């Protein structure tokens, strides 16, 4: 069975590879015209995650930025030609997005790999590292083949289009819209940046079924889930055509009508509270239920084998998260700085909150608690980082530390599932908390940025916290249900095709030896 599966997989990959260049050539001319048409038609080619609100902060800096762009373009061509010339991305923005993308890769491999790896028993260390590296690689390839087009490649409520299949028509000159009118970044770096998000999200899930899943099952599930849960949620929350086309109520309505389902509702998710964390947290919880508990769970000691690795991993996550959150601004400007400070202080606050709460309730402040608190804070500030003020970020962080500590204790016992590395307790719960609190602290009355109106090019004067929290709750609910349903079906399917769990003997021996034929440590 195992062999059959890998052979099929290989055949599929090879087949795809052979077909890809041909298909790309076929349609290349057609796509080219669409991409370049951006300015001509007045519609920005690519969208980016954001809503009206996000650009609120982007706006103040937008004026200087676009001025720069024009200044650079001016020397080359007379003023008359400048209008028709293709948009030129700002080099500072571009450089920042390249760095941000690398930072997210760093937080995944090795950051997340070590954070999770340290938490399992020594006999399963390599299985975690291998699942992380392979899922990262597989999703990266799938992203440029069909992931990016379906998530960001065109209008639609739940999915994009296949117009940019195989990145058709995307050239070094293609640009992606940002949150400021007239400001762009190269579309290729937008593809890469979003690729890292798509790759890290399924890897978050593996913590929930760690130490007992078949390697083939982990891969197959992640491919299915990426295709049917990550891509549509990313599209629903983040897809819009960009701000350039919005000049009055009618154009705003047109852009909104073509945007993703949750974006159109006005849901705020700066860097992925719903798309990444709730999405993955729910899939993890479903997995923990469907795979069942590890052998000996609750009876045998399953202590983490290296909290030193876990601390290193958590720290790399913290560093890399600056790329994740700040890069989500797509521009290197004042809002980027706001997202940076928020990511910094919310995480610190959550670390403090978790540690002190643990110290008071359990008697000792643990290293694992501090590392977990940091991750909980990072998760919770993710949807909020470009919308709230630093004091709002501290409150979000403090609450995240305490709530997620409960998530891995009281809530975990309540749910009764063996979520090995607490994916739901930290990412699911922290994501939900952060998404809802974004609606609260984005309010200008609480130091937030409010929601930006691209028609008036100013922050909307009326921000009603309850209304926004309700919108946030709808986004949270949609994500939970969508990811939950897709996960149940995907796990079932994987169970039928390759089987979910390794045999009892293999589980006892450890996945390193039984699935990969090697050991992490030799004495």
């Amino acid at each position, binding site marked *: 069975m195992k062999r059959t599966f890998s052979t099929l997989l290989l055949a599929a990959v090879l087949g795809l590879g052979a077909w890809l260049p041909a298909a790309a050539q076929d349609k290349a001319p057609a796509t080219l015209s669409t991409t370049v048409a951006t300015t001509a038609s007045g519609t920005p080619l690519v969208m980016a995650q954001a809503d009206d609100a996000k650009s609120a902060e982007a706006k103040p800096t937008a004026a200087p930025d676009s001025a720069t762009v024009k200044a650079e373009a001016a020397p080359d061509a007379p003023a008359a030609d400048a209008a028709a010339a293709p948009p030129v991305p700002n080099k500072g923005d571009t450089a920042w997005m390249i760095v941000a993308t690398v930072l997210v890769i760093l937080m995944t491999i090795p950051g997340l790999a070590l954070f999770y790896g340290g938490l399992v028993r020594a006999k399963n260390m390599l299985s975690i590292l291998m699942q992380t590296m392979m899922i990262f690689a597989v999703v990266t390839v799938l992203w440029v083949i069909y992931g990016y087009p379906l998530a960001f490649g065109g209008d639609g409520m739940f999915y994009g289009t296949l117009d940019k299949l195989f990145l058709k028509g995307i050239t070094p000159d293609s640009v992606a819209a940002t949150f400021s009118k007239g400001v762009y970044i190269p579309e290729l770096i937008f593809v890469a940046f979003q690729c890292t998000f798509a790759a890290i999200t399924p890897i978050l899930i593996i913590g929930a079924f760690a130490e007992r899943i078949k390697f083939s099952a982990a891969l197959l599930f992640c491919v299915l889930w990426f295709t049917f849960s990550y891509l549509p949620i990313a599209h629903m929350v983040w897809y819009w055509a960009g701000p350039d086309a919005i000049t009055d109520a009618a154009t705003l309505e047109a852009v909104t009508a073509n945007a993703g389902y949750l974006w159109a509702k006005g849901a705020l998710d700066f860097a992925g509270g719903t798309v990444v964390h709730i999405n993955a947290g729910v899939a993890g919880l479903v997995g923990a239920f469907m795979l069942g508990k590890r052998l000996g769970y609750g009876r045998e*000691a*399953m*202590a*983490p084998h290296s909290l030193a690795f876990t601390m290193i991993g958590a720290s790399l996550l913290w560093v890399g998260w600056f790329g994740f959150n700040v890069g989500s601004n797509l521009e290197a400007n004042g809002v980027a700085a706001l997202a940076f400070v928020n990511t910094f202080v919310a995480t610190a606050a959550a670390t403090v909150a978790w540690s002190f709460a643990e110290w008071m309730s*359990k008697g*000792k402040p*643990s290293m*694992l*608690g501090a590392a*977990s608190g940091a991750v909980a804070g990072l998760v919770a500030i993710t949807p909020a980082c470009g919308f709230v003020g630093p004091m709002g970020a501290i409150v979000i962080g403090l609450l995240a530390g305490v709530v997620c500590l409960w998530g*891995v*204790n009281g809530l*975990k*016992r309540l749910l009764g599932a063996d979520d090995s590395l*607490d994916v739901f*307790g930290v990412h699911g719960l922290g994501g939900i908390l952060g998404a809802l609190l974004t609606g609260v602290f984005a309010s200008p009355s609480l130091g937030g940025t409010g929601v930006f109106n691209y028609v008036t090019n100013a922050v909307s004067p009326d921000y009603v916290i309850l209304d926004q929290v309700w919108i946030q709750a709808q986004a949270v609910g949609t994500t939970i249900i969508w990811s939950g349903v897709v996960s149940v079906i995907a796990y079932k399917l994987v169970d039928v095709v390759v089987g979910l769990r390794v045999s009892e003997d293999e589980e006892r021996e450890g996945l390193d030896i039984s699935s990969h034929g090697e050991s992490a440590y030799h004495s």
Partner: protein
Amino acid sequence: MKLITAIIKPFKLDEVREALSTIGVQGITVTEVKGFGRQKGHTELYRGAEYVVDFLPKVKLEAAVSEDLVERVIEAIEASARTGKIGDGKIFVFDLEQVVRIRTGETGQDAL
């Protein structure tokens, strides 16, 4: 000839080795072991999971000595390994039938 086996606290190993060298013991074998006795284990807490660790790390040392050294070896180990707190360990003494030095083929007392 006797084989003396002692279970001691790991951090006492150096003191014990020194005490044994001083009285003329030519060599010992040391193994890291785990076990339990009257000393209680401890509790470890990882997020929501609590584990009682019963087996504590100890060091086992073995020394083959001639009859005349036995009492002094026991005294030396007792004195150097004692902290006065529970968990200091135990000393076991066995009769030793034969000893062979592999390199030279010497046996018995000569091989010690």
